[in-house]
Structure formats: structure tokens, C-alpha cells
């Protein structure tokens, strides 16, 4: 099923929908918080980014979606560096983000339905009625029932807000979703629902996923490959299962030993 426009970018010349090459980033004149990171997200793949607070995971995620511009190196989407992707370009829609705090990420004045419908209106060029119909169907798909769709974030639970956040990202018809700790604010039972939803959506819609998480269990459940970051650098990368079961870098070993 495809809810919005079609996937707006195919494989880039480098062979991935999203490609970061030798990216370094520093906030202002501060020290580099992401150092020389390269990462490729092939079409439909799921990549995990793990590490502790301060390791640069979220900064890297912001660089991937084009919210930040690398100090050196570049991030390309569908073969185009972000700097060359104009505001109205369909490539802008190709990478969408799902945020850690589902309440803070939604406009408190908009109902769930409007939140998603606006994306269809502005990105898909649909009329208000068409956008609403599409938003209804998409919200239904992510588990927000008819009765709940009219509610604003304050009337929704954390899990419901996160579902709306995911629907909003999907409405743009992305090729890749970058999810920054999408379940760390949620209860374990709700977390399971959201993880299952992300996994189903990947299979149904072929959307790629970059999952940022400090929870190695979550990364192991959803992704095929993962990178481990320490102080802005990638210290280990590989197939997720292998990485988590036979870590070679001491930092990865320490992280895994800390799992309860």
C-alpha cells in the first residue's frame, strides 16, 4: 500500500538512498561532535545507530535529515547533497524524521487528523477533502481509530502521539525514515506495538529506516546493520546480530555487558 506520493528517489549513484560521506560536524566553534562518519542506507534497509548520550547519535540523525549542515563532508539524498536540494524539491520529502518526545514533536493546537492531512496538502498537493480522506486511512493503518483522530496531542497517550508522528512522517511518502529514540519515552507494552508497527510498515511500504537508540535490544529487533558511536566516531559497524553477539570493540563490549 502506498499512502502518499510514490517514493521520490531511487538509488543514488553511490548506491544508496541516503549517503553520508566523511561527515564531520561541530556546533559553532566547539569541538567536533561527529567525526568523519560515513554511512550508507540502501533502499529499504534498516540501519541502527547506537551509543551513549553525548556520542553524537542525534547530531548524526539531524545531519542525515538535513536539519544540520556538515562542517566538512556531505550527506546526499538520492545522489544530491542536501545543500543542492531546494525547499520545494521532492527529495526534501524523501527523508522524514520521527522524534524522541512524541508530545513535543506535535503541534498542540492541531488534531491528529489535521497534523497528517496538512502533510498531504502541502507535500502531495491534495485538496483539503482528499488530504483528510488520505490522512484518515493512514491514521487507521497506524492504529489511530476514527474516534481518536479528532483529538489533539493533549488528549492522546504517549503511544498514540508516537503513532501520529509516524503517520505524519509516512504521509510525505518518504524513502527513509530517521527515527531518533522513537520508543524510549514509552512503556514496554506500547514500545512493542510501535516496534511492530515500524517493522510492518517497512515490509509493506519498503521504507528504509535509520534507528537511533541507546537500547541495543530495540536495535537488534528492527535493524539488519548497525554502527556503534563513541565520542562522535564510529568505533564498530557490521551486521546487527553479529555486532551484538560477537562485539570486537571494547566500547561495544562494555555497552552490551551493561544490558540488564
Amino acid at each position, binding site marked *: 500500500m502506498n499512502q502518499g506520493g510514490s517514493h521520490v528517489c531511487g538509488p543514488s549513484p553511490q548506491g544508496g538512498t541516503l549517503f553520508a560521506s566523511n561527515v564531520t560536524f561541530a556546533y559553532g566553534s566547539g569541538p567536533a561532535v561527529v567525526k568523519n562518519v560515513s554511512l550508507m542506507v540502501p533502499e529499504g534497509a534498516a540501519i541502527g545507530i547506537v551509543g551513549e548520550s553525548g556520542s553524537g547519535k542525534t547530531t548524526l540523525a539531524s545531519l542525515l535529515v538535513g536539519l544540520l549542515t556538515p562542517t566538512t563532508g556531505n550527506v546526499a539524498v538520492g545522489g544530491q547533497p542536501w545543500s543542492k536540494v531546494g525547499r520545494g524539491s521532492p527529495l526534501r520529502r524523501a527523508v522524514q524524521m520521527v522524534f524522541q518526545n512524541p508530545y513535543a514533536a506535535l503541534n498542540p493546537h492541531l488534531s491528529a487528523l489535521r497534523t497528517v492531512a496538512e502533510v498531504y496538502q502541502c507535500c502531495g498537493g491534495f485538496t483539503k477533502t482528499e488530504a483528510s480522506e488520505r490522512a484518515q486511512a493512514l491514521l487507521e493503518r497506524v492504529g489511530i481509530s476514527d474516534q481518536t483522530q479528532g483529538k489533539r496531542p493533549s488528549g492522546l497517550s504517549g503511544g498514540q502521539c508516537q503513532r501520529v508522528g509516524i503517520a505524519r512522517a509516512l504521509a510525505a511518502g518518504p524513502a527513509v525514515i530517521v527515527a531518533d529514540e522513537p520508543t524510549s519515552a514509552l512503556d*514496554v507494552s506500547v514500545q512493542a506495538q510501535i516496534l511492530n508497527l515500524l517493522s510492518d510498515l517497512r515490509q509493506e511500504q519498503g521504507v528504509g529506516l535509520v534507528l537511533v537508540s541507546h537500547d541495543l535490544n530495540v536495535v537488534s529487533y528492527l535493524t539488519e546493520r548497525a554502527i556503534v558511536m563513541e565520542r562522535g566516531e564510529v568505533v564498530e559497524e557490521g551486521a546487527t546480530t553479529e555486532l*551484538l553477539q560477537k562485539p570486537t570493540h571494547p566500547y561495544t563490549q562494555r555497552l552490551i555487558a551493561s544490558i540488564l
Partner: protein
Amino acid sequence: MTEMLLRASNIAIEIAGLELVSNVDLEVDRGHSLGIVGETGSGKSLTCRAFAGLLSPIGGRISSGSLWVGRQDATSPDTHAKAALYGRVVSLVPQNSLMALNPLMRIGTHLTETIKALDADSVVQLKARAIDLLQRVGLPDPERILRQYPHQLSGGMRQRVMIALAIAGRPELLIADEPTTALDVSVQKDILELLRRLTHEENMALILISHDLGVVAAATQSVAVMYAGMVVERGPTDTVLRQPRHPYTQALLKARPTIGHTGRLMGIPGAPASPDTWPSGCRFAPRCPHADNRCDAKVPTLETIGGGHVGACHRLHESLVLDLSKKDLLSS
């Protein structure tokens, strides 16, 4: 002989006329650690606020049942007795404690003010006691930390400061509400180790609230599982988490992803009922895969399974046992 530090019998907690916690029975002995787990809104924090005497600031009260803390009746209105109890006999490390320090006050001031309020013997050597407390919670270079402001410390260090504040009055029972939720896994492990060490060294009892079953498995001897304001299962941590008998506990365990897990995670369908629409029978029944007619008709009470393990389910003694191997659960 073990000494009981806290006994809650059948307590109910009300806020604005709404009963949010019902029929809670819990006991904690000196030197013992009890975990309380459950989803958001299950009443874990509220129950512990009641234990720490902190219901009135949020407009709550214990509406029935009895609560003994130390040797005192904590439901008595005697304010003098209460002042002697809280901070001294029982102390709470609140949830979100990373935000609980005053950003304009140095760590030293936080400590000395707390010591002045709680520990009359140490007032003459305030600074020495403050340094001693920081050392107890494993903070290096305490002299320097005394002069620092909260924003200059990492999350793990601030959590250690919060624990130092909580033990300033030399409490016998320490309650930690989600003490590691905002922390990295490696820091989480250190903080749990600290709590375990302090409980042992200071001969305290510990109540640890968490929504994370891994945390409770790693740090507590017994556990109570709460759902919709009630304790639904209780017993030795190892038994409850390896052989859970209540369908809710089973569902919580099955919802956890673990490394190497394949196949679909089992979420719990639906959402917890809110207090104004609690079902008249078992509160978990609407989401329970095993519910039958009895479950809608009558609230189940805690029944003995054996070895201190109790559960509140009409079908407790039927073959709903989910046996989890150590690998699935305690990956540590």
C-alpha cells in the same frame, strides 16, 4: 530476626474523590529490596508517595487501610510524628530527579541545607558530613563538586547527588522512583550497583520503582507488579519474572525485545483503563487473552501460589503458566 520497616495493609489512595490505588498490601523488611513494576498510570509512584508522606502536596490522601512505617502509624494526623518520619525513617529519590536540583544553588548548598533540616548531630561539621555523603555515593573529588552547580554535572553524577541528599537523614528505607530511566545503560548499571551497595552498607531497605523489568530483575529481591492501581502479582523477583502466573506479568515479559529475539513482539492490545472507567471485575480483563465470565463479574483477590508468590487472577491455578528460561529474561 528480620525487622519489618514498612507494612501497607489494604491501602487505597484517593485524589479529588477518585480512587487511584486500591487494596495495596506490601511489606518491606530491613536489608530487603522490593521492586514495583507496571505501566504508566498503574499507581506505582502514587503508592510510593504515600509511603514517603508526600500525598498532601498533590491533593491526595490514604482513604482506607493502614500504613506503618518504622514503628509509626503513617496515617495518623500527628504532624510532629510525621516530621520525625520523613527524610529520617523513609526517604524518596523522586522521579525526574535530574530536574529536581535547584539550578541556582551549588551542590554544597543543597547538601548543607538538607543536613541542617534532617541531621542535627552533623550540623557542627556540615562540610565534613557533606563530603562524607558525596564519598558514600561514589563521587570523586567531593570538595570540587560541592562548589559546582547542577548543570556542571553529568546525569549520572546528578543522580548520585540526589541519592546523597536522600540518605542525608540516615533513613532506614530508601525509595527510588525510576532512578535510571533517563540514564545510559552503562551509567544505569553503576547507579543500581550503588543502590545495592548503600542498602547493604547502611543497612537500609530499598523500594525501587521501574517500568523496566530488566532493572528490577537486576536490583531487587522481591517484586510487586501493579496494574490499574492494584497489585496483581507479588513474590521473589526470580520466581515472578521466570514463572509469571498473572497474564499481565506474562504480557509485560513477552513485550520486551531482547538481543537475538526473532519473530514478532507481543504488545498488549488496547490501553490501560482510566480510573473513572475501571471495570467492575478484574481491571485487566478487557485486555486479557484468557478472560472469561468470572473476570468481568468479580475483582480477583491475591491468592497464594507458594513460596511467597501471590497473584490476583481467577484463573491463577489453571495451566496458564509461561515458563521463561534464563536466557529470555535475565540476559545479564
